[in-house]
């Protein structure tokens, strides 16, 4: 048993982080309050596809890279840290959904990067099966051809045209949002009994939220070291340094639980659903609280769009909603049988 990444996994982390730092620095989103939702260029999307990101955890005979859920989680954590559009993770999940349905043609198009998927997140009760019915929020679905929807019954792919929604402004300017009532056949459907894709989705959002919590911690520590007041870096004052320490605790708690949960899911342990729900609930709290605390550390600057602190707060709220909110996850945690 080993909860720390091995050398190959550290390589996945390092190469992903290096590419994202170059292609998607968080500061790129500072103007999104005026430029609106972000859509990554086709060439960058193809780069992701060529790196195998959309099939990272998919077996090679299904067109994937042949890694597993662990490497997907490591990728999602870096995507969260870089505030990459949530549709990257939706597309990865959509490719898996297509592969398991099976729908080889869509799978290949998603893996090649010629099809993209956004999120269709149920609002209240929704029916997800070979037909999909209910109220949904479409999140980061502009400029995508497909929607990924999942709940405890299974996961489905939908044609984005089947869900013409009512656009709304999202609190995160860089992410598109629409409210939609859907009643349409699924293009592909994977029942939860075949594979619990809703759990995988929750886990990947937990990893992305952990990445945001870590980014908040690192931004705060950097600023606390640089900003001088009363003749000292503000990080010397306990009011600030203890805030930063609490962010480090939250990030560590969120990451270790996410790491354990992905292993539990990979090994199909009896308590995997409980572990995943715990990870999502804890990572969401970590991202929300640490990103808020990071704004406070930045003082007045943190309240402006000229600094990145506010971007983390907003993205944390988006991921908190995706694949089951914190409240829903906590209900699942308490409903689960007593852990072993």
């Amino acid at each position: 048993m080993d909860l720390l990444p091995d050398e190959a996994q550290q390589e996945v982390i390092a190469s992903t982080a290096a590419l994202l730092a170059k292609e998607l620095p968080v500061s790129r989103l500072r103007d999104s309050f005026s430029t609106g939702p972000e859509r990554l260029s086709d060439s960058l999307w193809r780069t992701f596809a060529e790196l195998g990101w959309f099939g990272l955890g998919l077996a090679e005979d299904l067109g994937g890279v042949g890694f597993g859920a662990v490497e997907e989680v490591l990728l999602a954590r870096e995507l969260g840290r870089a505030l990459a559009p949530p549709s990257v993770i939706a597309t990865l999940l959509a490719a898996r959904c297509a592969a398991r349905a099976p729908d080889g043609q869509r799978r290949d198009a998603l893996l090649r990067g010629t099809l993209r998927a956004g999120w269709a997140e149920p609002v209240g009760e929704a029916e997800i099966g070979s037909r999909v019915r209910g109220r949904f929020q479409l999140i980061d679905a502009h400029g995508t051809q497909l929607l990924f929807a999942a709940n405890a019954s299974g996961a489905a792919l939908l044609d984005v045209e089947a869900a013409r929604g009512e656009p709304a402004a999202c609190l995160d300017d860089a992410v598109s949002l629409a409210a939609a009532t859907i009643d349409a056949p699924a293009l592909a459907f994977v029942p939860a009994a075949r594979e619990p894709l809703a759990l995988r989705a929750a886990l990947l959002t937990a990893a992305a939220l952990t990445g945001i919590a870590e980014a908040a911690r690192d931004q705060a520590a950097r600023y606390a070291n640089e900003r001088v007041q009363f003749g000292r870096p503000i990080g010397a004052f306990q009011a600030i340094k203890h805030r930063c320490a609490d962010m480090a605790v939250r990030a560590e708690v969120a990451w270790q639980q996410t790491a354990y949960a992905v292993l539990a899911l990979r090994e199909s342990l009896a308590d995997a659903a409980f572990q995943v729900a715990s990870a999502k609930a804890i990572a969401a709290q970590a991202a929300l609280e640490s990103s808020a605390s990071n704004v406070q550390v930045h003082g007045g600057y943190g309240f402006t769009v000229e600094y990145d602190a506010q971007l983390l707060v907003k993205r944390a709220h988006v991921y908190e909603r995706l694949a089951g909110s914190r409240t829903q996850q906590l209900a699942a945690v308490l409903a689960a049988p007593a852990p072993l």
Partner: protein
Amino acid sequence: MDLDVTAEDRAFRDEVRAWLRENVPRELRPEIGPEARAFDLAWQRRQFDGGWAGVAWPKEYGGRGLSLLQQMIWFEEYARAGGPYIGTCFVGINHAGPTLIARGSDAQKTFHLPKILRGDVVWCQGFSEPSAGSDLASLKTRAVLDGDELVVTGQKIWTSFAQLADYQELLVRTSSEGRKHHGITWVICDMKSPGIEVRPIVTMSGGAEFCEVFYENVRIPVANVVGKIDDGWSVAMSTLGFERGTGFIPEQMALAAEVEELIAEARVRIGPDGRRPAIADDEIARRLAQLRAEVAALRAMTLATVSRARRQPVPGPEGSLTKIFFSDIRQRIYKLAMEILGADALVLTGMADGWTRSYLRSYAATLGGGTSEIQRNIVAERILGLPKDVTK
């Protein structure tokens, strides 16, 4: 990253489970006094005789020489089997033992380690002083070299079980030259030495295990110095590193059982509306769920600590992350218990049982082993690289 459990580990778990089922004491652990000492030592002896003392300690000192993961399996099963709190054996097993293994001389190891494991002796800690709490390095208890002895005069405080202990891990000032972290010496003090006076302090939870210890010209052989004279700070930091790193694993494991017990309590007790069980209350349910998720995360952090310890034998500052989280959860469990208990929250039962007693005791969680404020300083300065305190 993997959860691979070897056949050997699985067999080990089965063996542990079977042994604990037969051997865990059925009677409640006496909370105080010589009865507590007798109980703890007898139970330690029983574990030793069964081959279970010091699962991860080196074989040459009577341990079993197994992996830290197997040690954790032991603690996990121990908590599940309802094994008693380690009590008076805590300092010997979790502080002095690991410190001696890492920093002691061969003679010290050969003499003390088997005694600790066999349950022959109780150790206590002599670190804090009335004016040296969080600022531990400002300690003043003086030791003057006289031939091959150190002559110690001064006072220690917050020494649990001093009145029951045979030995003490004692920090003394051997030099006032230079930085205050220099000139401290870590020494083994025989508690029967002439010139030692122990005064118990009653705590808010009713226990009197806490003591002040006074030293007047107490003579300690220089051979009892662990590490070098004047270099005790680094030895003390490894002692505290063990405490924060792996010393709390059994208690972390025990917290999970507490949360499950509290959930069971909330299902049977009438809640705040006077009609339905407490768990039907949304806020109580949410807080229970949160705690259940958090003790799962605490276990994951512990597994990470064990994974880290394999790469790095002396724990680093990461232990403080776990300590902060653990202490906070512990207090929130008992605060929630007080709400679930309703009117019964005011009723104090025996010394050794009841949610209310545990609630009062939980105030110590963010104080003992370094306050959570000091732990936050460690995390901020040593992990995040923030500047030192203004006062340093």
